[in-house]
């Protein structure tokens, strides 16, 4: 009877489908961590290394990790490069879930709110990892080294320093009647150059903040603000301290560049303008070097001019760290392997300088001949390193609620920059919101 036959056929087919589905579901449930532990049993240790780098940075770190994996047979690094805004959130969630990567990145400015997710390196369950890894303080740039400690415990191993510098278009300088080998260093020289470019060429004169993102515009304002010797918050970190003449002078200057002097327009992307040869001068980070080079623009690089009392630039440092690990998932052996991998990355961070444009914090790498011979060094990095040595670099706010404070300030600074809100009101609103954030 055909109906009975076809029904049996259907039952068999259904069972096969269910089995396949169950198998697929089981396969799909294998997370990378389980794969890592399976591989670990095969006597090659695989460590997850999760960074927040993107673009040129990510490509540079990729080089380093590839070199590591080629040079090491018993340990492999599994590199995952994440997204900027959500990196620390994912880190916390991963640590909470017990499947954090074995190596990660942490900005020096964030140690105060991220430390809870990190392994204290001198007191780990595998002992003093700094010793096991051969990490010696004398081999690192001092200011970055000291930033890796919180409440007496060391959490971070420095990787680099990075900061904003002054990029300028030599051809536009020449067309504007300026000397391309004498970039401006004082405020008067800078303003004269900007006005010259504006009146004698049809390019934009200056972009203060890389692009149009809120956090970049905030950094530009902070450069002018810090340059007057001021700080965002009161020393106890409880209240805003920027709604005053210095905050206003800084914001007025920034807003005036766009709306009074017409050196640029709001909402524009300085990176693209500069790469298109449409921008005379740009404040941007050292990571811009590969893009500037690839653009074919005849560009020069110099120290950030002294806009106010002292020359100041925005900067931060990347550090390597080991997130907190679950003892039943990650062995002591893996912790030691992680710190050794960190040391290896430091030893090869001259690549980080050459291809990522950052200043290695590991002094032997900073002095490596390969780095010193590179274009990156000769054109930009030596001046970046000099700015660090001269103390021009100012870290962003170090505070447990720093992300929320920044998020409270940024929209108002941006609205003033866009010309929507007068600077005085913008600062008042920002102050009110920051105080609210700090009081909860």
């Amino acid at each position, binding site marked *: 009877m055909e*109906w009975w036959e*076809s029904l049996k056929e259907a039952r068999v087919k259904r069972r096969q489908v269910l089995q396949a589905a169950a198998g697929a579901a089981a396969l799909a449930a294998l*997370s990378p961590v389980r794969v890592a532990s399976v591989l670990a049993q095969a006597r090659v240790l695989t460590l997850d290394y999760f960074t927040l780098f993107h673009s040129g940075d*990510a490509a540079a770190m990729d080089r380093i990790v590839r070199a590591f994996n080629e040079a090491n047979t018993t340990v492999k690094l599994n590199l995952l490069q994440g997204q900027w805004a959500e990196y620390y959130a994912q880190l916390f969630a991963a640590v909470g879930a017990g499947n954090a990567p074995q190596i990660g990145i942490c900005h020096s400015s964030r140690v105060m709110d991220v430390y809870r997710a990190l392994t204290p390196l001198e007191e780990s369950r595998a002992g003093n990892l700094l010793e096991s890894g051969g990490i010696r303080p004398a081999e690192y740039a001092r200011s970055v080294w000291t930033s890796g400690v919180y409440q007496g415990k060391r959490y971070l191993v420095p990787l680099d320093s990075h900061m904003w510098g002054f990029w300028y278009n030599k051809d536009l300088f020449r067309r504007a009647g300026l000397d391309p080998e004498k970039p401006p260093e004082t405020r008067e020289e800078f303003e004269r150059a900007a006005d010259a470019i504006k009146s004698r060429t049809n390019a934009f004169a200056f972009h203060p903040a890389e692009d149009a993102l809120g956090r970049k515009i905030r950094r530009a304002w902070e450069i002018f603000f810090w340059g007057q010797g001021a700080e965002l918050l009161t020393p106890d970190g409880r209240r805003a301290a920027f709604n005053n003449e210095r905050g206003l002078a800084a914001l007025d200057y920034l807003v005036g560049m766009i709306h009074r002097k017409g050196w640029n327009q709001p909402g524009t992307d300085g990176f*693209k303008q500069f790469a298109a040869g449409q921008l005379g001068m740009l404040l941007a980070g050292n990571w811009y070097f590969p893009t500037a080079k690839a653009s074919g623009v005849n560009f020069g690089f110099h120290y950030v001019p002294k806009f106010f009392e002292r020359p100041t630039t925005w900067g931060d440092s990347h550090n390597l760290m080991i997130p907190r690990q679950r003892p039943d998932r990650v062995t002591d052996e893996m912790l030691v392997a992680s710190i050794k991998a960190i040391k290896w990355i430091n030893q090869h961070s001259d690549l980080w300088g050459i291809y990522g444009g950052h200043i290695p914090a590991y002094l032997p790498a900073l002095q490596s001949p390969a780095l010193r011979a590179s274009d990156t060094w000769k054109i930009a990095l030596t001046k970046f390193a000099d700015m660090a040595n001269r103390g021009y670099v100012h870290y962003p706010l170090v505070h447990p609620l720093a992300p929320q404070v920044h998020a409270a300030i940024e929209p108002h600074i941006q609205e003033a920059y866009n010309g929507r809100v007068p600077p005085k009101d913008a600062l008042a609103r920002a102050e009110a919101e920051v105080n609210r954030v700090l009081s909860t």
Partner: protein
Amino acid sequence: MRLRHRGVIGVLAAAVALALLWLVPVLWMALTGVKPAPEIFALPPHWLPHAPTPAHVRTVLTTWPFPRWVVNSVIVAGVTTALSVVVSIPAAFAFARLRWRGRDALFLVFLSSLLIPLEVNAIPLYFLMNRLHLLNTYAAVFLPMIGMPIGVFLLRQFYLNIPFELDDAARVDGCGNLRIIWHVILPLSRPALAALVIYMFIFAWNEFFWSMIALQSPRMFTLPIGLRAMQGAYDIEYGIMMAGATLASLPALVVFLLLQRSIIRGIAMTAHR
């Protein structure tokens, strides 16, 4: 007579021009992806590239696991669609062809969630998937989508229009409900199944918010999320981003050129009551 003919040509010409204009953004994306950077930022703009380059495409394919993203999307969309169809068929049958107490009330309960999107569940789903250790797996993405009542809704609508006498005839012959589904309902509901498959596949392929939260490592990304990761990483480099966006459009374009009539017919089917 001739006037009307000219009128028709006029309308058709205008319509074709409209469609081409409508597609200019897609063309512009593709052209930007093959222009070298100086040409992308040239003013006045170069409408056609003077020196087209495959460099951006090469960068995209070598820096990112692009083919892997396509595979991930196919797996997620495929499993979602397949399982959605499989669980919707018997449920729709129970709602359409069987009579039982509480049937319409229960259907209304399921129906009320029809328009409620995945997004509102994002935070609790995140916690749930974390507990189940399913974060960053395909399962995390397809499991919630299978619970969408759209399949049950569509199929029930269709089943209601199949003559009930067929069921009765089969029952008289001694068939149980399973056989009725298999031998009577399924063969007749091919258009509805096609419509459901098309709808679910497109929906699952393009799902963004929840996938972005659930998938964390680049090797697991589906295509929309991978593209977003590229944008976060390369927001300076429009050539690379447009090349990536163009590559990401290719699967849709290929499928569309091959199956355009079926897809449009399938979508239209969901509108016919």
